[in-house]
């Protein structure tokens, strides 16, 4: 079957009532979670993951999670505009212009701009994924276990290198994740490792309770603690008016949207960068080429469009390294990798040969989700925006109950809830030590792939430990790892400086506006 016919079949598979229901449901949950400040898209995905266990078709499950990702990326802009608090990290740059425009009374215009740009960026990103996935997968299809092991090293190193504020802490976190995964009975030799005679450790630590405790529960507990400190003050959200984006205005923001989409698609496809970085680069670039740079920070439509198109474009392009090489681009795709594995799929070139229809169905699902983002956003934004004003004490118990029940559902064993509680305590200590848990999670997720390929390579090459440096492709991957980590750290430092400068400028402008208003 040719690629085109597989793609055709994939689109047909997406347009089933079940898939469409999961796409709409996922996007709605994503929008709701994304728009609540303090809760991230990662939490949305983790929360939704156990609910996908009952889905028979793994591609439907992944599509549902991708829909959460797509909806969450847009949802982050709703609170950024109405509350001046980004719902997700990727919506920080949206506050620069979204909130000033909302303060001027043009909330719907700001939201429409965000929705238009998000949809545009998302569709292009997904299209890129559709076009590039197969050629890249073909390129890496000659990989053996040696190269796969090196690729896993590349994935963990990149995420460790760019996470948090310190490279040694990032690497330490990644290594700790692999160490955690080694606990339990070794699948190859049958030997128990670091079980200390405790029965529940015999089966090892599953990735689901780790994801739930280290990301989801940690966020909710932090947010609930903050709620207590603030005495339940939610901040006043701007009311949504009735004057939306006009066709003329949509045309005027098209160049900034296209430029940001292009940059973000390229950046997103590079493993280890992600949407958080892309938005600032795009915002800055759009400001430089704009005819009205003086409007940036004061409610510029181009500013909102640049920030929002970038973070949604990243959704599709970040899936390129994940689906073709099995390397996650950021924290969200790291969790998606975990979801793929939990659903019995292994992202990588083999997926495009052995499970081509499923692979393309997922890609088509990502495309369709982005396609439906605009109409769904138009209908649901007003309703979703009201969630921002729901007291957090209504949301938190529901999320925590779902977290524990979801962890339990993973294996149906009570030990998962015990791991959840233990890892939550551990997550608190990680916070005190300022160690990012995301590389740890990736270590935990990739450890099995790493060790399996390591063992296979060792058995195939008579325990030649230097084989990873002897095989040319593996050596190139390892060299790329070092080069990319070094350059990513430099890029991220530059972007951080740019980010700080832009944040400072935006805060000053916001203060000025507030003073003028007063």
């Amino acid at each position, binding site marked *: 079957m040719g690629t085109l016919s597989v793609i055709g079949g994939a689109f047909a598979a997406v347009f089933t009532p079940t898939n469409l229901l999961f796409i709409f449901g996922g996007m709605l949950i994503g929008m709701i979670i994304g728009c609540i400040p303090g809760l991230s898209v990662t939490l949305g995905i983790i929360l939704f993951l*156990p609910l996908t*266990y*009952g889905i028979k078709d793994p591609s439907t499950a992944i599509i549902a999670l991708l829909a959460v990702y797509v909806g969450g990326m847009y949802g982050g802009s709703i609170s950024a505009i109405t509350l001046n608090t980004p719902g997700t990290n990727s919506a920080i740059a949206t506050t620069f212009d979204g909130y000033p425009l909302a303060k001027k009374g043009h909330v719907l215009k700001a939201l429409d701009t965000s929705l238009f740009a998000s949809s545009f960026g998302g569709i292009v990103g997904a299209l890129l994924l559709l076009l590039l996935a197969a050629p890249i997968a073909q390129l890496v299809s000659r990989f053996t276990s040696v190269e796969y092991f090196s690729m896993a090293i590349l994935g963990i190193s990149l995420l460790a290198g760019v996470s948090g*504020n*310190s490279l*040694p*802490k990032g*690497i*330490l976190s990644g*290594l*700790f994740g692999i*160490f955690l995964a*080694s606990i339990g009975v*070794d699948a*190859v*030799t049958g*030997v*128990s*490792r*670091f079980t200390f005679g405790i029965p529940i450790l015999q089966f090892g630590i599953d990735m689901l309770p780790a994801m739930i405790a280290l990301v989801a*529960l940690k966020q909710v*507990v932090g947010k*609930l*603690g903050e709620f*207590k*400190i603030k*005495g*339940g003050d939610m901040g006043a959200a701007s009311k949504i008016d009735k004057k939306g984006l006009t066709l003329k205005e949509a045309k005027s923001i098209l160049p900034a949207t296209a430029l940001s989409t292009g940059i973000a698609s390229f950046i997103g496809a590079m493993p280890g960068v992600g949407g958080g970085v892309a938005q600032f680069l795009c915002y800055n670039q759009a400001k430089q080429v704009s005819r009205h740079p003086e409007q940036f920070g004061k409610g510029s439509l181009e500013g909102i469009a640049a920030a929002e198109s970038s973070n949604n474009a990243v959704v599709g392009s970040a899936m390129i390294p994940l689906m073709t090489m099995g390397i996650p681009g950021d924290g969200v795709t790291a969790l998606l990798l975990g979801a793929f594995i939990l659903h019995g799929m292994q992202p990588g070139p083999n997926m495009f040969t052995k499970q081509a229809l499923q692979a393309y169905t997922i890609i088509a699902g990502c495309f369709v989700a982005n396609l439906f983002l605009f109409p769904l956003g138009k209908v649901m934004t007003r309703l979703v925006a009201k969630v921002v004003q729901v*007291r957090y*004490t*209504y949301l938190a*118990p*529901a999320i*925590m*109950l*779902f977290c*524990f*029940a979801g962890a*339990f*559902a993973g294996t*149906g064993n*009570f030990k998962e*809830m*015990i791991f*959840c*509680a233990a890892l*939550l*305590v551990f997550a*608190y*200590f990680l916070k*005190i*030590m300022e*160690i990012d848990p995301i590389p740890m999670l990736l270590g935990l997720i990739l*450890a099995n792939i*790493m*060790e399996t390929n*390591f063992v296979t390579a*060792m*058995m195939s090459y008579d*325990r030649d430990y230097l084989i990873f440096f002897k095989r040319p492709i593996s050596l190139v991957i390892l060299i790329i790892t070092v080069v990319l980590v070094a350059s990513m750290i430099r890029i991220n430092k530059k972007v951080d400086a740019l980010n700080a400068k832009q944040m400072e400028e935006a805060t000053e402008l916001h203060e000025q506006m507030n003073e003028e208003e007063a």
Partner: protein
Amino acid sequence: MKKIKIKTNLLAGLVMGVFAIVMLALLPSQVRLPMWDSGAPSPRIIPGICLVGILICSAILIIQSLVFHKEHIYEFVWDHEKHELVLILALILFVVLTRFIGFIPAGILIFCGVQWYENERKPIIYIYTILMVIFVFFLFQNVFHVSLPAGFMERFL
């Protein structure tokens, strides 16, 4: 408000360094070698490499802190942190209670307690919390076919 400034590089280096040393010392007793050689590499290799890596990173963090004075400071404000700690404790208690009395009673007790701690006094939020616990239990039981621990209510559910 009393603040404690924590040098995170130093703390992380010390804690993780000690952890790695202890685990490396325990490696021979905790990871026994297989009785026969299957051709596979030793099961100690991967955890061993990780622990050595953690030790090296810890040493770098300690050197960064003590020699180059490169630090990230975490301000530990007890008045703020205590809320988070209370909530973590509540969730641990929830897990313990779930084991003994079941998901629904434990959920009702703990999450209503959490609402009280968050200064929620309106009855409606307590009714909502109780209904939410019951909803989650039956959602998992009837829709996802996962029986959450029912505890002493097992006979009735």
